[in-house]
């Protein structure tokens, strides 16, 4: 059985300007120990998906309209707050993009590190501090004993991200959700953090959901990738298949617009137009207005994910019909 199974999740935001369908009917699952990449541009719904699972959607305006997220037999979207608390932060942990805003600037690192332990486990402060120290060393912070009692502002960006990872992993979660954890970092530091996540995953045997817009990061880290556009999953496959034989026009276009994939001196391939306005739901495929293959049918019929092979599914009507 999968560790996490999300079925038909819809998260909408009811604002004064209309209803934003940030996530609009997505289903996916994560196996134990596997790394799933979620790729998409800003506004594609990749973060909202994970915030929904973690119960972090501000409500109002956000509302989970439908769907279930079964984690080891418990529906995270509909369980009692007590049940949710026993899973969130202990068995499912999350790290965020910006380590400066997600650490509490008023509390010492030590306080923040032991908090999940004190909440979720019967442990004394002293033992918790010992665990915190060991964890800081495990994530590669030099002089951990000296730095344990510092404040977040005394760390650099990369170190703060290490502290965040330590905080998330201290309860030995089974699933780690990483929401663009390296976007705010320099490439050299990004390489360090990616290595660290890989190493910790191997040690703890946890599953990872890795959200990013960088296809390069996904290619080295993830077992499986799903591509999101306009609140829906447009393609999902194992990493090699997705990179070497993508089927959906959006995945192909996304791949072709990466500068490093194109010969120097040529005009870069671009996807015309702009991402869809999610407050104005339209019939048909949300990528149709920007798609070079779109025909009349694409603007009328809403495409559904259909399997190409057992590990590969995509949602393009024309690919499904065998036309492209």
């Amino acid at each position, binding site marked *: 059985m999968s560790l996490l199974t999300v079925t038909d999740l819809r998260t909408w935001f009811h604002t004064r300007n209309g209803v934003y369908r940030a996530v609009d009917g997505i289903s996916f699952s994560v196996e134990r120990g596997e790394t799933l990449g979620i790729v998409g541009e800003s506004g594609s719904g990749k973060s909202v998906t994970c915030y929904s699972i973690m119960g972090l959607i501000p409500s109002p305006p956000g509302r989970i309209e439908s769907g279930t997220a079964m984690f080891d037999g418990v529906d995270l979207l509909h369980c009692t707050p007590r049940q949710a608390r026993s899973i969130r932060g202990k068995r499912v942990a999350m790290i965020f993009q910006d380590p400066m805003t997600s650490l509490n600037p008023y509390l010492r690192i030590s306080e923040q590190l032991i908090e999940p332990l004190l909440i979720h486990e019967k442990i004394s402060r002293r033992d918790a501090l010992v665990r915190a120290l060991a964890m800081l060393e495990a994530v590669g912070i030099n002089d951990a004993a000296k730095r344990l009692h510092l404040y977040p502002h005394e760390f650099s960006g990369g170190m703060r991200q290490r502290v965040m990872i330590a905080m998330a992993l201290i309860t030995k979660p089974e699933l780690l959700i990483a929401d663009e954890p390296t976007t705010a970092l320099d*490439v050299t530091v*990004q390489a*360090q953090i990616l290595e660290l996540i890989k190493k910790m995953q191997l040690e703890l045997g946890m599953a990872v959901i890795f959200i990013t817009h960088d296809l390069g990061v996904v*290619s080295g880290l993830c077992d499986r990738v799903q591509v999101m556009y306009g609140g829906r999953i447009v393609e999902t496959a194992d990493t090699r298949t997705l990179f070497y034989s993508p089927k959906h026009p959006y995945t192909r276009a996304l791949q072709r617009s990466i500068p490093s994939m194109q010969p120097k001196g040529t005009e870069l391939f671009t996807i015309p137009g*702009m991402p869809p306005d999610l407050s104005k739901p339209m019939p048909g495929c949300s990528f149709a207005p920007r798609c070079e293959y779109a025909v009349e049918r694409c603007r009328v019929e809403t495409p559904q994910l259909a399997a190409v092979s057992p590990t590969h599914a995509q949602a393009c009507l024309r690919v499904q019909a065998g036309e492209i």
Partner: protein
Amino acid sequence: MPDTILQLTDVRTHFPIYAGFVRKKHVGTVKAVDGVTLSVRRGEVLGLVGESGCGKSTLARTIMQLVPTTGGTVVLNGKNLSDCTARELLAVRRGMQMVFQDPYASLNPRMTVYATLAEPLLVHGVCPPANVPARVAELMKTVGLSPQFLQKYPHEFSGGQRQRIAIARALALEPKIIIADEPVSALDVSIQAQILNLLSQLCRKMNLSLIFIAHDLSVVKHISDRVAVMYLGKIVELGLAADVIDHPRHPYTRALVSAIPTPNPDVERSRQRIVLAGDPPSPINPPAGCAFHPRCPYAQPKCQLAVPPLIADGPTREVACIRLDEI
């Protein structure tokens, strides 16, 4: 060289640090830019890369004379900018313009697009007031926006469109050189490509020089003719874009190149990555000798003795590493 448009010679920008509230005491210096010598030719795109804090943005601001230089000279079109009076500077600035990273912050939210684009024209008096509307409309077309958006405000545009407006504003005075400080970092991949295409088209069409600052090496490789790699206020490697990025020579450039994840799973999983330990050191008390030696996998005791100069390595290449022939 006659076709050199911008010449930097040993440019230094230092910021003093003071401690104390009432009686300020000088306690140290941040050497943000520390001895940069660089030239940009007419119509050339020069990429400037480095980690955050290496001084690339400060260098851009120094060239624009937005921060005072501590030493060295910036010569634009034969004119030494550090000797200019304020009045002369105004005239000189017509020749160089800047595009900033965040198009959400660099446009005035209370000014319509028309007002934003007309302001430089009026301030510098480049065209008679009667011709301003026509010129503004032309600028909009140059950057691929419809003139019918002129009465809109910045918040009504997407990030990519805003960056186009910022580029139009920079072009308004027909500059010789544009300095773009991370112009695509805040944009999505598909929008990035559009802006990059626009910038390289403009450079070709108008014979513009461009200093393109970024931390994304693949973007820089695509758009630049030459690339300069900065580390802690100094240039460590300089050469043709494809050479520097495909065959890096300086240990820092090698590490930087190997840190970029490639969108190719087979390559990505099999390659050897040089993962640098630690963060870039502080520019307040930079390490002695070569500033990179504490993180360098090839460092030897002699690297701590003297600051390595940029040495020519072939006709188009300069590298600052004393162990270049040994590694």
